[in-house]
């Protein structure tokens, strides 16, 4: 029986392979978190999947975050991976320019990424290169913007019967 996988072992393993390419190491609430250049994402994910020691073969979540003040890297794409054998999770982020939100699709590696990338495209407009069917999944097909980007208001803009003053938002 091997020694149980720990954050330190994962970090060492990744650092041996990728060196300084992986940055921003932190462990909020014990969850190992790091980021890298966006063009490296498939290499990192493939290594995490294939490595006989790491075995991160389950994608729990894939989502995006919009940081409007983070000029040049406004959109973050976040991968949550789970090693089901050792029951340990990690979080891997990449950042991309909102004006050119091209990110390689992980759907060939993790089938779970297929719909989650469509959702991320739907709400944030991240363009996943290599995705087999990148179209809206939750919102109406006619929608012509990406609603969770911060520049768009939450409220329905078609209403005429609500007085904004009454809702404290003038």
């Amino acid at each position: 029986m091997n020694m149980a996988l720990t954050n330190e072992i994962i970090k060492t393993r990744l650092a041996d392979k990728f060196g300084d390419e992986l940055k921003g190491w932190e462990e909020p609430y014990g969850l190992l978190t790091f980021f890298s250049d966006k063009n490296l994402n498939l290499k990192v994910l493939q290594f995490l999947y294939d490595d006989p020691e790491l075995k991160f073969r389950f994608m729990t979540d894939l989502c995006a975050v919009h940081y409007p003040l983070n000029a040049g890297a406004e959109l973050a794409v976040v991968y949550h991976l789970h090693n089901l054998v050792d029951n340990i999770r990690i979080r891997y982020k990449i950042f991309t320019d909102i004006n050119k939100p091209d990110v390689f699709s992980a759907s060939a590696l993790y089938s779970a990424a297929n719909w989650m990338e469509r959702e991320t495209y739907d709400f944030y407009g991240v363009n996943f290169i290599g995705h087999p069917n990148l179209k809206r999944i939750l919102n109406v097909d006619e929608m012509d913007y990406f609603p969770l980007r911060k520049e768009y208001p939450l409220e329905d803009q078609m209403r005429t019967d609500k007085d904004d003053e009454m809702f404290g938002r003038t």
Partner: protein
Amino acid sequence: MPRPVQYNIHNKPLEIPIAVGDAPDGYTGVGFFASKLSDVVGLARKNSIWPLPFATSCCGIEFMALMGSHYDLARFGSERVSFSPRQCDLLMVMGTIAKKMAPIVKQVYLQMAEPRWVLAMGACASSGGIFDTYSVLQGIDQVIPVDVYVPGCPPRPEAVLDGFMKIQELVGKEDLRRRDSDRYKDLMKSYGIQ
């Protein structure tokens, strides 16, 4: 020792007799009753409304209570809840309707035969409710005409019964020619329905 079961110990006398419903105006004699056909049709329609529950969220749960033995919508002639729009008279929309769901609500409405009525149950179906957001339809009256709105979040079954009785009132008093009138046609046209 078993508890003695007592109920109706303070018996309340009936204020008005409830055994017979309101009869339409007409002439009564020995063995006959003459009245307007439209009144009789209204009477028949309003006491055998077939509802189509279009339940998408918590209001639907409240509707289940309404159909149950305690509140018992069947007392009002609506025992038969149908899940085929083709056989229904009353579309009961209960719950949040997302914009993606809106064409389906409209489709169901279009599949119903005239005469048809619509009841919007709860804040979400009536106005979007708390969901003042880009993804939620701000009231089903944006896609189909609504006859009765029942407010509440969710409304109690009694409130829905009240709304249902309002529908019965509309159904019973409706002019048989209403659906042929220009006003009604204009209303349908405003929703893009032929």
